[in-house]
C-alpha cells in the first residue's frame, strides 16, 4: 500500500516537473545586477520584462544578483547561469576587470554577453550599453536650462554651472559639450562655472555666492547629483524660488520635494526602465544574430550606433518634472 502511494506521488511529481520544463521559455536571459534590493535595478528588471513581453519569442528573464555588491558574488551567479545554459547574460558589473575571465568562459560556451550601466572590459562582453553619451548629456543640460528659463518667464538670462571637482573627468567632458551646444541657444548667457567638489556644504556655499554675484542669474545647471540637491536647498533657503531655477542631473527620490516646491522645474537622469528594456532588446538581437558590427536595434528606444569597441549609447537623459517625478521617486 505505502509503496504504491510513494510511487504514485513520485510519478505525479515527476510529471508535473516534466510539464514545467516542457513549457519552458524558448530563450532565457540572465539579468545580473550589482546587488539585490536596489530600486534602480528593480526598475531595470521592469524594463526587461516589458521588452520580453513585446518580443514574439517567449523569453524568460532571470533577475538575479548577489547580496552584497562584490565581483566574487557576481562570478558565482554567472557560473550558475552558465550551467543553466542561458542564451544571454545582461550584467551591470561590480568590477570591470574581475568579471572578464568568467564572462569569456560564458562566451566560449555560446552565451551572448551585454553589459549595461557599469561596463565590463571589452574582452568580457560583446556590447556595452551606456545610458547616454557625453554629447547627449551636454546638450540635454543646456536644453533643460532653456526650459527653466521659460519657467522663470524670462526671454533672456544668465546661467551658471555648478560642477563637482575641477579634476572630475566626466564633469569636464560634459561642460565642454555644454559649451559646444550653447551657441544654438542665444537666449542663454553662461556667466560662471563653479566647483562644489561634490560636497554638499561646499556646493551650497558656491550656490549662495553665485546668486549674490550675478543678480541677473536665472538658471543654475548642476550636472552632479550632489550639486543639484545642495543648490536646490540653497535656493529654497534663500527664498529665491521662482526667480532662480536649478536644473541638471539628479535623482528623483532626492529631488521630488524640490520639484514640488518649485526650486527645480525639471531635471534629467537615465531612466532605468528604458535601460533594462534596451539592454534586453540588444541581448535578443545578439541571440538572433541580427546585430551588425555598427548598429543594433533597441525596440522603442530606436537604433543604437556601435563604436569599434562595441559601446552603444541609449538616448538623451530622461527628463523628470512635476508630472512624473513622484512616480519615479519610489524607484530610485
Amino acid at each position, binding site marked *: 500500500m505505502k509503496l504504491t502511494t510513494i510511487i504514485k506521488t513520485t510519478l505525479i511529481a515527476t510529471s508535473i*516537473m516534466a510539464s514545467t*520544463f516542457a513549457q519552458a521559455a524558448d530563450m532565457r536571459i540572465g539579468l545580473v545586477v550589482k546587488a*539585490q*534590493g536596489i530600486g534602480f535595478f528593480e526598475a531595470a528588471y521592469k524594463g526587461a520584462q516589458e521588452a520580453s513581453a513585446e518580443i514574439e519569442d517567449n523569453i524568460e528573464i*532571470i533577475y*538575479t*544578483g*548577489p*547580496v*552584497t555588491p*562584490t*565581483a*566574487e*558574488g557576481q*562570478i*558565482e*551567479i554567472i*557560473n*550558475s547561469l*552558465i*550551467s*543553466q*545554459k542561458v542564451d544571454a547574460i545582461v550584467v551591470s558589473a561590480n*568590477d*570591470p*576587470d*574581475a568579471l*572578464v*575571465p*568568467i564572462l569569456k*568562459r560564458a562566451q566560449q560556451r555560446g552565451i551572448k554577453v551585454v553589459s549595461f550601466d557599469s561596463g565590463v572590459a571589452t574582452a568580457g562582453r560583446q556590447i556595452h550599453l551606456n545610458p547616454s553619451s557625453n554629447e547627449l548629456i551636454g546638450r540635454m543640460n543646456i536644453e533643460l536650462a532653456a526650459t527653466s528659463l521659460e519657467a522663470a518667464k524670462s526671454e533672456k538670462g544668465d546661467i551658471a554651472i555648478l560642477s563637482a571637482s575641477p579634476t572630475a573627468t566626466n564633469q569636464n567632458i560634459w561642460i565642454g559639450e555644454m559649451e559646444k551646444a550653447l551657441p544654438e541657444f542665444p537666449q542663454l548667457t553662461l556667466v560662471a562655472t563653479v566647483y562644489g567638489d561634490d560636497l554638499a556644504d561646499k556646493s551650497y556655499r558656491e550656490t549662495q555666492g553665485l546668486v549674490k554675484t550675478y543678480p541677473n542669474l536665472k538658471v543654475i545647471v548642476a550636472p552632479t547629483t550632489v550639486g543639484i540637491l545642495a543648490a536646490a536647498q540653497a535656493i529654497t533657503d534663500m527664498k529665491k524660488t521662482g526667480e532662480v531655477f536649478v536644473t541638471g542631473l539628479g535623482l528623483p527620490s532626492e529631488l521630488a520635494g524640490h520639484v514640488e516646491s518649485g526650486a527645480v522645474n525639471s531635471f534629467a537622469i537615465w531612466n532605468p526602465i528604458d535601460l533594462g528594456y534596451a539592454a534586453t532588446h540588444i541581448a535578443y538581437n545578439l541571440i538572433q544574430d541580427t546585430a551588425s558590427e555598427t548598429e543594433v536595434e533597441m525596440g522603442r528606444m530606436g537604433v543604437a550606433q556601435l563604436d569599434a569597441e562595441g559601446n552603444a549609447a541609449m538616448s538623451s537623459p530622461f527628463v523628470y518634472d512635476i508630472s512624473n517625478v513622484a512616480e519615479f521617486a519610489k524607484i530610485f
Partner: protein
Amino acid sequence: MEKINNSSFETKDIEKKSLPSWVFSWESFLLATTVLVFFINCLASPYFLDPWSLSDATFNFSEKAIIALPLALVIIVRDIDISVASIIALSSTAMGFTAEVTDSLFLICSAGMIVGTLCGALNGLLITRLNIPAIVVTIGTMSLFRGITYILLGDQALKNYPESFSFFGQGYVAPFIGFEFASFLVIAVLFYILLQKTNFGRRTYAIGNNPTAAYYSGINVAKHKLIIFIMVGFFCSIAAIMLTSRLGSTRPTIALGWELNIITMVVLGGVSILGGSGTIVGVVIAVFLMGLVNSGLGLINVPGIVMSIIIGAMLICVIALPGVFQRLRNKVGN
C-alpha cells in the same frame, strides 16, 4: 574538562547499541545530509548533474575551503582568525605590484606567499607574545591589512598579470578537475595526516582540550599556536594566488566578507568553537555540503538574500540537531 566527559559518555552509549561508533559520528550525519542535498539538487534542476556544472561549481568554494583547513586547527586550539580575507587582499596586492615589474610566475607567487606568511606570523606573534586574545588581534589586523590595500590601491585595479598566471585559478589538471579543486583535495589529505596521524596533531587536540594541562605536559603552547597562525597566513596566500588568477585582477575589495563563509565551513564541519574537537574529514564534508547547497540554490535562481537565510537556518539546524538528539537519548535513558 566537560568536553572529555561528554565524549566518554557518548562512547558508552554507542557501545551499548553495539554499532560501530562512526555510524553516530558527526561526520556520518553530515555525509548523509550531503548525499540528501545531492539528490534534492538532481531533482530540483535538470542542469545540476552535468560534468561542467559540477566542475564549475568547485571554483566557487575551493579557495575558501583551502583556508578552512588550517583555520580548523586554529579553532581546535580555542583561537579564531577573522583576518583571513584581509590577508588574501594584502597578499594579492603584493602579487599585483610584483606583476607590474616582472613576468616571472615564481616571483609573483613568492611575493604573495611571503606577504601572506608574514601576516600570519604577525597575528601569531601578537597573540602568543603579547598574550592578547586572538579575536581582538585579528579584528585589528582585519582592518589593518585591508586598510593597507585601500591606501596602496585606492580605486585602482592591478591587472598586469602574465597570461600564464591564469592557470592557477582557471586551469585544469585533468578533464573537469580544476587546478583549484585538485589543490584543495591534496591539501586536505596533507591536513588529515597532520592532524590525525602526527604528534603535531595530538598536541593540537591536547592544547584545545586544556591549554594549561598541555603546557605542564611539556608542550610549547605558544610556539605551537604561532606555527598554526603562520600556516593560516601561508594558505591564505595560496588562496590569494588562485583567486587573483581567477579574477585576473586585484582590487582592494577582493575577497571582502569571506571570513564568515570560511568560519561557517569549519563550524559546520563539527569543529567545536570551544576547542578540542573536530576532524578534517568533517570540514571536508562540510565544504562539499556548502558547495552543493550553494550551487543547487543558484541553479534554481533563488535570490541571494533568500540563499543566505537558508544557509543560516541550515547552519543552526545542523548544529542544534545532535544536541536535541543527545537530550532525547538522555531522557529515554533516564
